[in-house]
């Protein structure tokens, strides 16, 4: 999965713009993501970071009246090419949402396997193997291996979120998007997931939106600071937090506004 790519970046965003009707939410973003890193997107609420994230897996366009322009190159391939099927794109770029959303009608096993069963893979042996592998990667296997048949919603909040991570990992996407994955969780579950993210970057590239600066500092390798729809600064995390180049970044991380 880590192979040799001619391209040093796994994701290259060029002049990405997004609108909600007339509201210009994301303004001309340029961003290049290094493979096997964790990139954090920080900024005050309403600054467009979640919208930006949703443009990366073409989920933004599902909103009525939404529009996107620009390009996003996934391993050299523009996902916004006119001929590209958004469904195929979303299989390459997985997503974990703010509030854990396992399917209540499916079991734990069923939830993890759903990406595969949708694609028509029915063979029990393959599914078993993928489910176990994904649950191990999500640090959930030991806790649920005896209750694979229980409904997805019967787990605790933190476990449900890890289940969603396992679900996204099952189809082996090269990139995993996370939209404030721990904001609805207690501190212990949050810590577990942060640990998990650090492990995950060996397998996938993670792009994570977080409203918690400390989390970004703990977990990420690169950080982008968003303000009013623009990417104000994008640098290695340590550099951004110790020597920010833009005064607005400095004001945000020192808490002058939030």
């Amino acid at each position, binding site marked *: 999965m880590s192979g040799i790519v001619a391209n040093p970046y796994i994701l290259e965003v060029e002049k990405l713009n997004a609108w909600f009707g007339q509201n210009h939410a994301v303004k001309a973003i340029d961003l290049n993501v290094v493979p096997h890193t964790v990139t954090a997107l920080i900024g005050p609420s309403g600054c467009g970071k979640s919208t930006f994230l949703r443009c990366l897996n073409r989920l933004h366009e599902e909103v*009525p009246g939404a529009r996107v322009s620009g390009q996003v190159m996934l391993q050299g391939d523009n996902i916004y090419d006119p001929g590209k099927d958004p469904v*195929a794109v*979303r299989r390459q770029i997985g*997503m974990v*949402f703010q509030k854990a*959303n396992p399917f*209540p*009608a499916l079991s734990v096993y069923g939830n993890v396997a759903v990406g595969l069963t949708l694609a028509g893979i029915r063979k029990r042996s393959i599914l078993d193997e993928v489910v176990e592998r994904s649950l191990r990667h999500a640090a959930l296997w030991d806790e649920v291996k005896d209750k694979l048949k229980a409904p997805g919603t019967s787990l605790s909040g933190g476990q449900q979120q890890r289940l969603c991570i396992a*679900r996204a990992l099952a189809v082996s996407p090269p990139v995993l998007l996370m939209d404030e994955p721990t904001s609805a969780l207690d501190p212990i579950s949050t810590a577990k997931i942060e640990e998990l993210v650090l492990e995950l970057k060996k397998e996938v590239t993670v792009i994570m939106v977080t409203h918690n600066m400390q989390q970004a500092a703990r977990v990420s390798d690169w950080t982008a600071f968003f303000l009013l729809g623009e990417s104000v600064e994008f640098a290695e995390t340590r550099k951004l937090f110790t020597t920010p180049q833009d005064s607005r970044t400095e004001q945000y991380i020192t808490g002058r506004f939030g």
Partner: protein
Amino acid sequence: MDIREAQLPRPAAASAMPKEVLRVPRRFRPRNGKGPPKQIKDVHYGDRNFYYLLRFGAFATIALLLAIGIQVGCLAWPAFQKFGFGFIFETDWDPVNQMFGALPFLHGTVVSALLAVFIAAPISVGVALFLNEVVPRRIASVIGFLVEMLAAIPSVVYGLWGIFVLAPFLRTTVQPWLATHFGFLPFFKGPAYGVGMLAAGLILAIMIAPTIAAISREVFKAIPDTQREAALGLGATRWEMIQLAVVKSSTTGILGAVVLGLGRALGETMAVTMVIGNRHDMSLSLFAPAQTMASLIANEYTEATGDLHLSALAAVGIVLFGVSFVINFLARLLVWNVERGKPREAR
């Protein structure tokens, strides 16, 4: 006292209130534990009277329901006495010889209602999915609005349309076609009158479709968008998303909607009376004229020959009431959760 009780708001100290309000009229003072119900917090005359007035209205409503059951039951009692409850399974309905058996009408009601549900349910759920998941919100609410409006057309108007448009159409076009292509099946045998079980089932289907669709839509609306996003995020097509996030989670609600539609179909009288053909026969064929419990009562009540006949008709009414009650009760149980989930203002 556990911690929850400690957090309840405490009533203001009694001494803070002016004496006029505190003076309790003698007849309202508690007498050895009996007295005004605990819900009355203050003893203002107006409030007491208002409360009792409303309570009277409430009891009157409950009493009304019981009265209906009792009155119809009393009217039906002579017939049940004479024929026993087994008269539901007798097939002879012969006012001349005073023999009354209700089976043909039970058959007519159940078959026409089931036929209606069989036709309407998949189509209605499909409409609900189409309006809620596929079409943009604004168009969906306009179409939904129109459908609900058209659903208010009275039964007798549907019956009128049924007699003069649907029945001839069935007689001249549909039934011959069915007879030529599927005539080997027992359902499509016999002469094509136009009126009959098929007409009744079709007209009922048209009438209950908006009900099933409206309730299914409510069920689908109750599913949070985050479920839909989860499916799309995994790379599901829109149809796969509908199956995964919407349909799979709402099977109970959909079932409830269908059963409610069934309940409506069972109780429909006029449209069915006008197109079912009024023949006291039971037949497997959908082409055959038939009679439902409701249409029997509608047809024969004013011309009942004698008290026993009337009583038998009321007995048929009791059976209809019973069947309708059970089905509607079942539907309520299934749809209960959806209705409770609707947002309400906090009190």
